[in-house]
């Protein structure tokens, strides 16, 4: 392979002769064409530019790129281009490249945004998101009214399947997580409370913490990652596949068909899962407590039963319903707002999980303050 060379000499009659020699292949260190371009820009400007390719070896896109740059600059400077010296193939490729003129306004001009501008836009987007979520919640309420009146279109089998997915199929993961959380609480309790000789109160700590706070919040976070994400991905993919358009053209409400059954399923299943999670957590605590504290199972159970009132149970279950509806709404809203590409499905899934978890934690704080004030 011979080295690629680019020379330009003023020829006769105010013509710039550009000579290409050697092999012009991409990725073989091609010379830059800037000096030719400079000659085209500088006075005395040549009247025309022609090409000499008698010593040119093999060539590919590398040659065409250089030619295009020269061609473009020459047209800009009103210099005539004489293409007769070029290989036939190269000439045809250049003609092809210029055959369809650039569409007016098609090129995008990226603008560097300033810091404040970006902060402002993010804030506006945030309030826009909040508004979207509220609108969506409103539509959901209207849809629930249609369900209550029996005028909604949906498949009973779909609803049952969502219930199975959000309920029975979540058992394994909820069991493992809650059992371990219960154990962790018990470890901390045993370590700290034994210092005061009050180790037996570990049972109270585990039971109250699980039933009032931890079981609802952990179950909700598991469901946000599991079911909320699945809702966003399922609905988002349906949107990409025009399945939602197909529903609309048949005069059906996508929200009745896709969103409300999912919300109902999750809101029904969350309290059940939460109760189950509390129980598993208490079992976890019991395992640690009985082994480390040297107390009997009966003692531990008696202590637990004394510690927990119905207030705590209902308080926890109410929380789980709130969290469940937030997770379902976040997942479905992101799915319905999904764009029309695979990338957008991924983004709305991510957003569904993030939004779900943020909503859970915020509402958990609010509910805890309310509970304390009304004395539950």
């Amino acid at each position: 392979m011979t080295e690629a060379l680019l020379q330009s000499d003023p020829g006769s009659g105010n013509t710039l002769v550009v000579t290409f020699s050697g092999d012009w292949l991409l990725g073989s260190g091609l010379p830059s064409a800037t000096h030719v371009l400079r000659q085209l820009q500088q006075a005395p400007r040549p009247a025309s530019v022609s090409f000499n390719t008698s010593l040119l070896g093999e060539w590919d896109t590398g040659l065409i790129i250089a030619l295009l740059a020269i061609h473009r600059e020459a047209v800009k400077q009103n210099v005539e281009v004489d293409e007769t010296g070029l290989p036939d193939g190269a000439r045809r490729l250049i003609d092809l490249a210029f055959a369809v003129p650039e569409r007016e306004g098609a090129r995008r001009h990226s603008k560097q945004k300033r810091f404040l501008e970006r902060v402002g836009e993010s804030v506006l987007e945030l309030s826009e998101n909040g508004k979207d979520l509220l609108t969506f919640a409103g539509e959901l309420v209207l849809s629930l009214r249609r369900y209550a009146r029996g005028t909604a279109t949906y498949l009973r089998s779909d609803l049952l399947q969502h219930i199975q997915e959000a309920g029975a199929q979540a058992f394994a993961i909820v069991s493992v997580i809650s059992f371990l959380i219960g154990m962790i609480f018990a470890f901390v309790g045993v370590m700290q409370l034994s210092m005061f000789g009050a180790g037996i109160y570990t049972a109270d700590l585990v039971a109250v913490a699980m039933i009032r706070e931890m079981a609802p919040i952990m179950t909700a976070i598991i469901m946000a990652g599991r079911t909320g994400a699945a809702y966003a991905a399922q609905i988002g993919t349906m949107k990409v596949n025009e399945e939602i358009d197909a529903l609309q053209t048949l005069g059906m409400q996508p929200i009745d068909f896709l969103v409300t059954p999912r919300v109902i399923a999750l809101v029904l299943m969350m309290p059940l899962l939460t109760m189950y999670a509390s129980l598993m957590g208490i079992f976890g605590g019991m395992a640690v407590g009985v082994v480390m504290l040297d107390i009997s199972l009966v003692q531990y159970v008696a202590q637990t039963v004394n510690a927990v009132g119905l207030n705590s149970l209902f308080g926890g279950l109410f929380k789980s319903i709130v969290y469940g509806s937030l997770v379902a709404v976040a997942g479905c809203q992101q799915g319905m707002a999904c764009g029309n590409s695979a990338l957008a499905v991924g983004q709305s899934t991510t957003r569904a999980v993030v939004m779900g978890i943020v909503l859970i934690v915020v509402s958990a704080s609010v509910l805890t303050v309310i509970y304390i004030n009304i004395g539950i």
Partner: protein
Amino acid sequence: MPDSRSQIVVENLTLAYGDFLIQKNLNFTINRGDVFIIMGGSGCGKSTLLKSMIGLKSPDMGDISYNGVPFWSSEHQQQETMKRGFGTTFQAGALWSSMTLAENIGLALRQYTDLSDTAIRDVVAYKLMLVGLAGFEDYYPNEISGGMMKRAGLARAMALDPEILFFDEPSAGLDPISAKLLDDLILELRDSLGTTVVIVTHELASIFAIGNNSVFLDPVTKTQLATGDPNDLRDSHENLVVRNFLQRGMAETTR
């Protein structure tokens, strides 16, 4: 008083996404029993026009009347009722992936008719037979090929015996034989049921084989360049762009 033959009248329709104008000043009429082709180069807004006609994208100006009733200035409830007279097949079928073919086709029947389950089952079987998919009732969309999904989509669109069938690129991605069979099926539906058919396509073979009326959209001027029988447009329309498109770029500059 509109001509009793004219079924769909598009008047001064302007379509845009935000500030981005797609098409403006569209005016054409589709008669009962027409096979109407919406054609034009890539990116000219054919699919957007179709979306507007099936009630998915509201126009920025103008309206579309069906049997003399303007769609976009009607009440929501009225629009829903009008939509039931449309059947639409989407580019990739857009079958509901969580349902079998039978459930896909039967959904609208279950929703809008009082048919019993066995009757629905019979209707579904018949519609599948029409599109050459007899026996595929209990398959899910991901278990059949792309061409089959397209035909199943057509069966779903025909479920309610619509007055107007809309097709988005019906033959794209089909082999020539399947495309020909689909064309024949479309003509058969028109002839036997009197269905009006509106098709977005740029398959020239289909355009001339089945179309008897058309509109030509241009992406440069962003409006319609021609409307009428595609065979006439090819042979004698005054605009070179239209003739060039219909003759695969072989139109003579001077006639």
